[in-house]
C-alpha cells in the first residue's frame, strides 16, 4: 500500500493500490475511489477476532467496533477521510512489531497486518451514589505491513528510552508501541495529595491497568492519567 496525505486542514488519505493489493478500512469513511477498485466486506471473524471477544467489547458500553470492515482491492486509487481536523500518520510495521492505536483513529491497514481490538485501561468515577466505568479502547496492530491513522489536531511523537517515562491525559493518548508499559495513575490536587499520600495508584503495565477492578477508583476530584514507560514510541494528539 502506498499512502499519501492530501490537504492540510482536514487531510484525506490517498491510497494507491497495485493490482490485487488489499487494504482494509472502517466502513463509511471512503471519500472517493476509482471504478477499477473493488469494494468488499470483511468480518472481524475473518481477521481472527471472535464474536465473543467483540461482544465483550460492546458489553463494556463505549466500544463502537463494527463487525464489518470495508476491503478495497486494487488496482487504483481510494481516498479516505475521517471528517476530522488532524495530522495523519503512515507507519510501516516490521514483522511482530506492534502498535496500539486508540479506537476511532485507525484509517486503513494492509491485509497482512494483524488486527485485534482490545482494552488498554479502565477506571471508575463516582458521582454521588452512581459509579461509572470508563475504558480506553485500542486497535492492536501487529506487522508486517502499513497502518494509517489520524490524530485530532497535531500529533506529537516521543521516542522513549528504556525506563524513561512520559505522562499524558487519557484523552491525549493516540498510539503506543507494544514495548511501552502503560500504567493508569491519578493526578490529585495538593490537598488531596496530603490526604491520600500522593499519586501512585496504578497497575504494573498493561495487565495492571486492565486488572483494575470496579470500585478501585481514584480519590475524589482527581484526574486519571497514563504513565507511559519506554522503550518505544508514544504519540499524543493536541486536539483530543
Amino acid at each position, binding site marked *: 500500500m502506498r499512502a499519501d496525505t492530501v490537504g492540510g486542514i*482536514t487531510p484525506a488519505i490517498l491510497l494507491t493500490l497495485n493490482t490485487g493489493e488489499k487494504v482494509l478500512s472502517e466502513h463509511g469513511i471512503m471519500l472517493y475511489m476509482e471504478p477499477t477498485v473493488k469494494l*468488499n466486506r470483511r468480518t472481524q471473524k475473518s481477521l481472527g477476532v471472535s464474536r465473543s471477544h467483540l461482544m465483550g467489547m460492546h458489553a463494556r458500553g463505549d466500544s463502537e467496533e463494527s463487525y464489518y470492515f470495508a476491503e478495497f482491492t486494487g488496482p487504483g486509487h481510494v*481516498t479516505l477521510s475521517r*471528517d476530522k*481536523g488532524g495530522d495523519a500518520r503512515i507507519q510501516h510495521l516490521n514483522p511482530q512489531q506492534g502498535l496500539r492505536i486508540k479506537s476511532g483513529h485507525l484509517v486503513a491497514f494492509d491485509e497482512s497486518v494483524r488486527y485485534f481490538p482490545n482494552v488498554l485501561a479502565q477506571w471508575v468515577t463516582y458521582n454521588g451514589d452512581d459509579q461509572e466505568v470508563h475504558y480506553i479502547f485500542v486497535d492492536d496492530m501487529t506487522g508486517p505491513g502499513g497502518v494509517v491513522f489520524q490524530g485530532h489536531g497535531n500529533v506529537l511523537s516521543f521516542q522513549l528510552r528504556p525506563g524513561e517515562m512520559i505522562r499524558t491525559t487519557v484523552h491525549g493518548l493516540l498510539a503506543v508501541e507494544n514495548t511501552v508499559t502503560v500504567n493508569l495513575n491519578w493526578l490529585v490536587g495538593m490537598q488531596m495529595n496530603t490526604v491520600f499520600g500522593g499519586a501512585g495508584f496504578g497497575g504494573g503495565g498493561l495487565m495492571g491497568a486492565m486488572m483494575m477492578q470496579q470500585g478501585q477508583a481514584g480519590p475524589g476530584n482527581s484526574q486519571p492519567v497514563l504513565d507511559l514507560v519506554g522503550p518505544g514510541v508514544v504519540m499524543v494528539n493536541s486536539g483530543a
Partner: protein
Amino acid sequence: MKLDVRGEFVPVALAQLDPGEQIFCEGGLMVYSDPSIQVGVRPFTQGGLGQTMKRTLVGGIPFFMHVYSGPGYAAFSRFSPGEIRTLELPAGQAVDIAEHSLLLATGSVQYDAFYVPGTGRIGRMIGFWMDRLTGPGTVVYHGHGNILGFTLAQGEVVEIDHGALLIKDPTVQLQSFNQPLGGGLTGHAMSFECLKAVGPGKLLIQTLDPTKVHHQTE
C-alpha cells in the same frame, strides 16, 4: 467588490463594497458588518410557483436570499473548518455548487437551484439540491476541510461520497447509486449511497462532510 479572506482554520470572507454595489447570500452567514451596509432580500422565484413550492417546501431552499448593499464591509462564514475560494464567471458561464457551500455572490450573478435524484431506497438518500450560478460576476464558496480538484475527460468516471461533492461544471453528470459492500444479500443490505460523476469537466471535492460536522455540533 474587494474580497479579503481572513483566518486560517475557520476563515471568513470580508467583502468591501462600493456605494450601490450588491452581494447576496443565504441568511445566517453574516459574521459582522459595517453599520453603513443596507440589508434587503431577493426573492427566488425561478421556474414559477410549482418549482418555487418544490424548492422551498420540499427541498428546504430559502425563498429569500439576503442582499447586502454598499458602501461598507461585511464578513461571512460557513462556521466550519475549510478553505474559501473565489470564482470569476464570464457572462453565460455556469457552475454548480453543493448545498452548504455557497458563501456569497455579486449581484450580477444569476442564482438557480436544481435537484439531483437519490437512489430512492426506503429510509435512505432521497436526493439533494445544488446551486447553479451563472455569470457574469464573482462567486465565493467555502470548501469544508480541504479542496481537491479533478479535470475529468469525456466519459471519465469517479465515484464519490455525496458529502464530498463541492463544485462541478454543468457538463459533469451526476448519478446516485447504491454501492454494495461485498456480494450477497448482506452486501446489498449494507450498501451505501454514492455518486458517479461522469466527465467531461471540472470537479472539486471536499474532505469534510458538512452534514457530519453539523451532526457533531448539535
